[in-house]
């Protein structure tokens, strides 16, 4: 009973934090001056071609990024997860770095490489005009977001390759070489996971506002934000957010209905079984060179350019003097958000893992839906729900930012915890129950100590995502409570490049340093 009540309470909390704001937003879009009205939608439709053009831009951008990320990410995932390529673990970590860095920081970094006064412009002035033209617009947005999101495809490909039953491949190897086995057995088996990764990249790109704003490419979510921030037309903003909600729901329904079961089954059946490895032979070193060059271009080059853009301590001193309050706020909010996500996510993950509550699928689906929903939409939903005289304590304080983090990133601790719990044999928990321990005692003394390494990883991932958040913070931050990403975005329009680069380096540093510290600490601890 103790367990059931706690899990039900956790599920209800997710509904209140995540679903209720979205429902309230939809309801509010039909209210103008306190009465039912479809005026906002009429205005949206009357704006005619402009809206369709923006939505077209958003969809082209999302399709482009998803296409390139999948085309490049799957072969890289295969190389790193399935072959005997030297240093593959190091490369996996290195190639995952862009996922930890906010996409708008990557855009600033690339500007330092190919923008006006950038490295390539100085080296090859003849092509600088063409490069700059291509960078500011659709192609630049695709390139930046592709490098930002390709690690999602790489990591998911590696994870699901590890889930393929090695006996199926061994049976194939008896009648065919590796190319045939990959084409006819391995890739078809992980195809649902690849499509899932592509859908995820598509939806994350669809909700992106920072990069298109910086690279001056008009997309639909920026329109939602403009309605809200520039005109403070709340009905129009909520109505403008609805098409994004519909696209997200349609993509997720497609993914959930057609693929999710296969992905889950693949993961559940064989995770953890040692996998068969492809020996690259004479291709080993040429392919190593390819991966090395890829890592240098997409990770090392932009980061080096960013650091070189702010080479002196004076730049950092100025950055601190201009934004120390935002840096501190970002750190505090990220720590609170990550801690709450780890605790609540533990229970959400437990619901998904345990499967005894009838609505466990709903919890998983809701968390995924909220993750893929543009941050601006969640932000507007939060304001719809909490901007009332009674709930001002939430609306006018940073609590609303934290609620936004909990809603948007719930899926990370939920899925991670569920995966961690999957690795703990159920008999360990059952044995504790039979020894007389209640559920909380079992969690405290058996489950938590066994899951501690994983839970630290959950905290770190949650911290990284809270720290880099822009979509929600930008919409909901109360006066005088802007975060570092919001300050960076503001400075993107009119700040000095050196100051902007210094702030971006600080953001990357405060993201990566705790990560490195935790990695070292975890390495010293014994594995589960």
């Amino acid at each position: 009973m103790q367990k059931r009540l706690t899990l039900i309470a956790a599920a209800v909390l997710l509904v209140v934090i995540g679903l209720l704001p979205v429902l309230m937003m939809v309801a509010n879009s039909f209210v103008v001056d306190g009465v039912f009205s479809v005026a906002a939608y009429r205005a949206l439709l009357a704006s005619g071609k402009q809206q369709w053009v923006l939505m077209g831009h958003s969809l082209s951008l999302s399709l482009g990024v998803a296409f390139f990320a999948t085309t490049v990410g799957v072969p890289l995932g295969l190389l790193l997860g399935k072959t005997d390529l030297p240093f593959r673990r190091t490369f996996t970590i290195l190639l995952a770095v862009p996922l930890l860095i906010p996409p708008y920081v990557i855009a600033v970094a690339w500007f330092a490489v190919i923008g006006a006064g950038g490295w390539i412009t100085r080296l090859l002035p003849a092509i600088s005009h063409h490069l700059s033209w291509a960078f500011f617009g659709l192609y630049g947005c695709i390139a930046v977001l592709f490098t930002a999101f390709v690690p999602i495809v790489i990591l998911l490909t590696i994870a699901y390759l590890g889930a393929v039953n090695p006996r199926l491949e061994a049976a194939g190897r008896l009648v065919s070489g590796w190319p045939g086995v990959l084409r006819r057995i391995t890739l078809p088996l992980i195809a649902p996971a690849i499509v899932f990764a592509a859908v995820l990249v598509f939806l994350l790109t669809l909700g992106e506002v920072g990069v298109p704003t910086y690279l001056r490419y008009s997309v639909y979510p920026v329109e939602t934000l403009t309605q809200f921030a520039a005109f403070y037309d709340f009905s129009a903003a909520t109505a403008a957010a609805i098409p994004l909600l519909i696209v997200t729901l349609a993509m997720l329904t497609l993914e959930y209905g057609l693929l999710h079961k296969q992905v889950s089954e693949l993961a559940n059946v064989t995770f953890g079984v040692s996998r068969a490895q492809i020996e690259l032979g004479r291709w080993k070193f040429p392919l190593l060179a390819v991966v090395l060059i890829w890592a240098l271009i997409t990770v090392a080059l932009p980061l080096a350019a960013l650091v070189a853009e702010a080479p002196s301590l004076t730049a950092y001193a100025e950055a601190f003097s201009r934004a120390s309050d935002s840096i501190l706020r970002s750190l505090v909010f990220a720590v609170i958000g990550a801690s709450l996500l780890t605790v609540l996510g533990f229970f959400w993950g437990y619901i998904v893992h345990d499967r005894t509550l009838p609505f466990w699928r709903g919890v998983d689906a809701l968390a995924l839906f909220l993750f893929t929903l543009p941050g601006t939409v969640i932000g507007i939903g939060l304001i719809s729900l909490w901007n009332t005289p009674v709930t001002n304590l939430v609306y006018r304080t940073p609590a609303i930012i934290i609620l936004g983090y909990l809603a948007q990133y719930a899926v990370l601790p939920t899925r991670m915890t569920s995966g961690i719990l999957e690795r703990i044999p159920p008999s360990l928990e059952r044995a504790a129950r039979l020894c007389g321990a209640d559920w909380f005692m079992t969690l405290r003394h058996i489950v938590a100590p066994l899951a501690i390494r994983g839970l630290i990883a959950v905290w770190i991932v949650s911290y990284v995502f809270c720290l880099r958040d822009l979509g929600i913070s930008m919409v909901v931050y109360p006066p005088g409570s802007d975060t570092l990403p919001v300050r960076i975005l503001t400075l993107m329009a009119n700040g000095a490049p050196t100051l902007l680069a210094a702030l971006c380096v600080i953001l990357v540093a405060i993201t990566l340093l705790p990560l490195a510290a935790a990695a070292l600490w975890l390495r010293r601890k014994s594995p589960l």
Partner: protein
Amino acid sequence: MSMIELRRVTKDYDGRRVINDVSLKTESGERVVLFGPSGCGKSTVLALIAGLVIPDSGEILINEEVVATTKGNLREPDQRGIGMVFQDLALWPHMTVAENIEFGLRAKHVPPNKRKERVREMIDLVGLGDYLNAKPAELSGGQQQRVALARTLALAPPVVLMDEPLSTLDEALNLQLREEILRLHSDLGFTLVYVTHNREEAQQLGTRIIYLRHGRIEGS
């Protein structure tokens, strides 16, 4: 007096009937072996008795008290006075041998000095005096079995369930531990329900053998 009673119990998993109208009774202090091929529902019967699984129909009684019906558990697993040795032993890998044995006593709020005393008694009972501070991974298969037995018996449960605990051991060790289980049973007098698919094991350990097949009792 009957210690455990199952009255017309059925259980389905994903639309498949794994326990089909099973009724059985065990007397206090009896050694009952559930015997049958893999997948016949032996372990599910143990899980039903322990309260880890709820029956879809029928009822379960322990000590003549109804502890589970189709509505759910009337007595939770920890309130049934049952100890269980799992097939994978379920030793907590992050705890030492002493901590594994002590955990149940802590859960029952036994005072620390009494706990220590009881842990010592149990360790001596299974002959693992030198391994008090060892972690399960540092022990051999046979030693791990003994820790699992000691942990189960620490709370002096009137009923002990064993789910194929010797199935992974070599023949010599298997024989040795069977003797040990019989010795512990005769010393402590608990009711034993033992699951196996090994005929020899069943014949040595059971005063009564119940044959299960396709979720039904086929004879005893």
